[in-house]
């Protein structure tokens, strides 16, 4: 059911400062090279495990096993630590696989959030309607898969509240998000219903700036940064795992914290 593809390298034009650290060289393929460590490994095991899709397949299977392990470790009620305002990281970093200048510019006047899949009401939502939803606030730590972290302040409405309002079937397995620039992301339903999972419209009590995902991001302090989509234009409640931008390239699917 889970669709997983390996994309050997990417458009080099997309390689910018931050993402450069994430992306493989377009000319090199696979995850498995790294001469010295693997040389030692080959020496120790007496067999060459560098080559082949077998090793890559095994690693991906273990990654799927790790999805299950993380889902089991995930507590639907345990809250991520929260921080005082003084702890907010300034300036809060912009991070994407493209330059800040290339971030999507969404027109708030014409914006509509599409809602699809296993929901009773599929009526699209205007920004005005979304802003009218009850507001909650959180100051939590955003942790990037690269290792760095930053504390930010986000305001919006709990995703669970929104799912209730659209009559979502919360027995479904996943919620899928699509973003203005084409970025996609699938999350598990327990995380979607976590009390701190938020449809975010503001950063530090101001309308979400373009850099941080205007008009809407999904903030999940229980997941790594790349699982927190920005510029969200559509969501779908589904039983089919549609994968995601980074997940399809080999990053762990669950990526819980």
């Amino acid at each position, binding site marked *: 059911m889970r669709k997983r593809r390996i994309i050997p390298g990417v458009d080099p034009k997309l390689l910018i400062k931050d993402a450069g650290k994430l992306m*493989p060289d377009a000319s090199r393929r696979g995850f498995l090279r*790294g001469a010295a460590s693997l040389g030692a490994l080959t020496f120790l095991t007496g067999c060459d495990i560098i080559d082949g899709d077998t090793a890559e397949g095994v690693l991906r299977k273990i990654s799927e096993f790790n999805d299950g392990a993380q889902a089991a470790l995930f507590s639907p009620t345990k809250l991520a630590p929260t921080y005082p305002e003084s702890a907010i990281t300034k300036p809060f970093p912009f991070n994407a696989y493209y330059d800040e200048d290339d971030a999507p510019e969404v027109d708030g006047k014409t914006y509509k959030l599409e809602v699809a899949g296993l929901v009773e009401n599929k009526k699209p939502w205007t920004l005005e309607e979304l802003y009218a939803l009850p507001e909650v606030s959180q100051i939590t730590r955003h942790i990037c898969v690269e290792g760095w972290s930053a504390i930010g302040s986000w305001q919006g409405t709990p995703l669970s509240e929104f799912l209730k309002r659209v009559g979502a079937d919360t027995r479904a397995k996943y919620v899928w998000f699509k973003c203005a620039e084409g970025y996609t992301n699938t999350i598990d339903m327990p995380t979607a219903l976590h009390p701190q999972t938020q449809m975010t419209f503001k950063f530090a009590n101001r309308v979400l700036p373009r850099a941080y995902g205007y008009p809407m991001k999904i903030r999940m302090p229980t997941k790594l940064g790349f699982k927190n989509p920005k510029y969200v234009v559509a969501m779908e409640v589904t039983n089919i795992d549609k994968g995601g931008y980074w997940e399809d390239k080999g990053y*762990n699917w669950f990526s819980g914290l």
Partner: protein
Amino acid sequence: MTAETITTAVDTGATIHPRWVRICHWINALAILVMIGSGWQIYNASPLFGFVFPREIALGNWLAGALLWHFAAMWILVVNGIVYVTLGIVTGRFRRKLYPIRPSEVVADLKAAATFKLSHDDLSHYNAVQKLLYTGVILAGVVIVLSGLSIWKPVQFQELTALFGGYDAARYVHFLAMAAIVGFLIVHIALALLVPKSLRAMITGR
């Protein structure tokens, strides 16, 4: 029963390292190499200090690949580590081999080692420096696993993460534990090559 058998074997000098020690040792060697190699690649994505590890010695080719390796080998490292530490305690091997560590003996043995006068005639007996290093690396192993869990699950295991001083601090602890283990490995491998019969003993048991 097992403990008795092992004790007898050691006492008669027949077996220096029982089978479980050798199996755990080599599984651990494999796991730790993968963890260190992939860990260096992960470090490179967001370096804590003013340097990165050369690509050639980092495993996984890029961050996603390194993470796949790291979170696969962690199971082997942890399961094997638990078996090793449990057997080490239950059989009494740790107590017998590693304790007590007397500072005066450490100093004396360090001096002897520096002048190449440290005897390795009896491989079943560890000198004070060995005791210190082996105990230290076992502790570093415990710290690296716990700090690793703190970084991996700073929400689910937030109490543990707090123990290390928070997420960012846990990353430094994890790195320093790695550095300690690498430092140990340099000495450990150099000495194993200098005293080849010690390497043989870890393979054949005698």
